[in-house]
């Protein structure tokens, strides 16, 4: 016996205008497939910018949701909202990270028109300035490589305006800190080599930690899937921070920047660390809440970002 084909009508969530009527839809079709069908009649709304929901003010349906499993009759009514122009996460990450890498080097090499002409293409006499350049560059190269080879993204895209906002933040702060660290009048840290060595140790440990967490999170999720599981410590000691914290990658990231701030003794770096910490705390709390909601057996000892505190 042939399964009954479903009908889908798509209405605009704001105006309730009928935008599209699809008949002869397979009942086991996914939302992703319906989005593809909708794009055929409205090519300017590619699937990534479609939000389809059962209720005009409700939550978006997921691409994996199956039509016949939704609470609809033989004719499903879906409401459409345009999410605006979208850009892929990978593109945003690559752009926002390549900027600081390149910009910092402009200041490091004292390219003309930044400092006085007599300083063009000169080199700092302080070891810590060269070390800082290596650390900063390493940090962003690591991020670029992780974006290309390590991270597995839940979402494909984000709104286009985010790239302007994010790049302003990353590029702006990179230029601001690089200006002072590479300035001819830069003052090295008060406690000299001791301070630099300690700060470097913090930085390296936290970078290794951050990378370990990224690898552990990647291994939680098979390629191409969007599954979510509780992360647990592995044999790698850096991942043992999972015992105390939901988002140790953020913990290590803040640690790296605190290390860099101590190494350079530069107030703008400290401010950048503070702003980053604030944003990451917001993200960590959100992630922690999602974990708690999704998993009944979530380890109770864990805090979002700072062990025992935050």
């Amino acid at each position, binding site marked *: 016996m042939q399964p009954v084909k479903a009908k889908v009508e798509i209405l605009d969530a704001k105006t309730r205008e009928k935008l599209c009527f699809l008949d002869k839809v397979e009942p086991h079709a996914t939302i992703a497939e319906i989005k593809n069908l909708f794009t055929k009649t409205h090519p300017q709304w590619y699937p990534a910018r479609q939000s389809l929901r059962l209720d005009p003010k409700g939550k978006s349906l997921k691409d994996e949701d199956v039509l016949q499993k939704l609470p609809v009759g033989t004719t499903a009514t879906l409401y459409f909202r345009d999410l605006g122009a979208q850009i892929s996460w990978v593109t945003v990450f690559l752009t926002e990270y390549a900027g600081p890498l390149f910009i910092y080097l402009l200041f490091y090499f004292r390219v003309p028109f930044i400092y006085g002409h007599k300083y063009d293409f000169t080199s700092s006499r302080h070891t810590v300035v060269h070390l800082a350049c290596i650390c900063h560059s390493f940090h962003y190269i690591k991020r670029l490589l992780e974006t290309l080879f390590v991270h597995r993204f839940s979402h494909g895209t984000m709104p286009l305006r985010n790239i302007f906002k994010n790049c302003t933040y990353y590029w702006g702060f990179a230029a601001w800190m690089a200006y002072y660290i590479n*300035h001819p*009048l*830069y*003052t090295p840290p008060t406690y000299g080599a001791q301070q630099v060595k300690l700060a470097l140790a913090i930085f390296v440990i936290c970078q290794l930690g951050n990378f370990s967490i990224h690898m552990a999170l990647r291994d939680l999720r098979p390629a191409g899937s969007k599954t979510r599981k509780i992360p647990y410590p592995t044999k790698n000691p850096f991942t043992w921070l999972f015992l105390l914290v939901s988002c140790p990658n953020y913990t290590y990231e803040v640690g790296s920047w605190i290390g860099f701030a101590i190494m350079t*003794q*530069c*107030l*703008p770096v400290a401010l950048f660390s503070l702003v980053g910490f604030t944003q990451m705390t917001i993200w960590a709390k959100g992630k922690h809440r999602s974990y708690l909601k999704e998993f009944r057996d979530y380890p109770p000892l864990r805090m979002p970002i700072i062990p025992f505190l935050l």
Partner: protein
Amino acid sequence: MVIARRFGATQPVSQLWLVLAIAMVRFYMEKGTHKGLYKSIQKTLKFFQTFALLEIVHCLIGIVPTSVIVAGVQVSSRIFMVWLITHSIKPIQNEESVVLFLVAWTVTEITRYSFYTFSLLDHLPYFIKWARYNFFIILYPVGVAGELLTIYAALPYVKKTGMFSIRLPNKYNVSFDYYYFLLITMASYIPLFPQLYFHMLRQRRKVLHGEVIVEKDD
């Protein structure tokens, strides 16, 4: 109970601004000049403006129906003008532009708080509503002009004295130039002022003419 609490919060603030307005009028009537006006009212003004931080709390807890961000921007700019410009840069205290923004602020605040007070009492005379949504059309530009002209007048003194600035080299490898900061602040009025102004114009159309405005999506 809620009404009484809200009333208690808005009433004192409108009194404060009335006191300030009366002090300014009396000074002018007695002295016939605006010179020395700032000096005579400055203690009162500083007290009120700092008090204005309460404004943000009012928005947070919902006594006043303005958004926290709008109130935040407003209060910050007032505190900036009072403490970081007029108080700190004595030579510009007798500029006419100072009177300009003081008058604009005073009239605006008296109108606004009378509006809130009468609304809470559920007995809002049409005139107050009319004033609240029409006075700003003149007062906003006048206030902005006063503020910008005052900052502009202050620039030469800031440059000469290097006040509020940090130069390199120093232990924390940072620098700050108050002169350029002021230039950037003046420039920031260009995007910010139209946004506030058009927001008030939209509110005016909605309230006075019952127009239904379709708000932009979040």
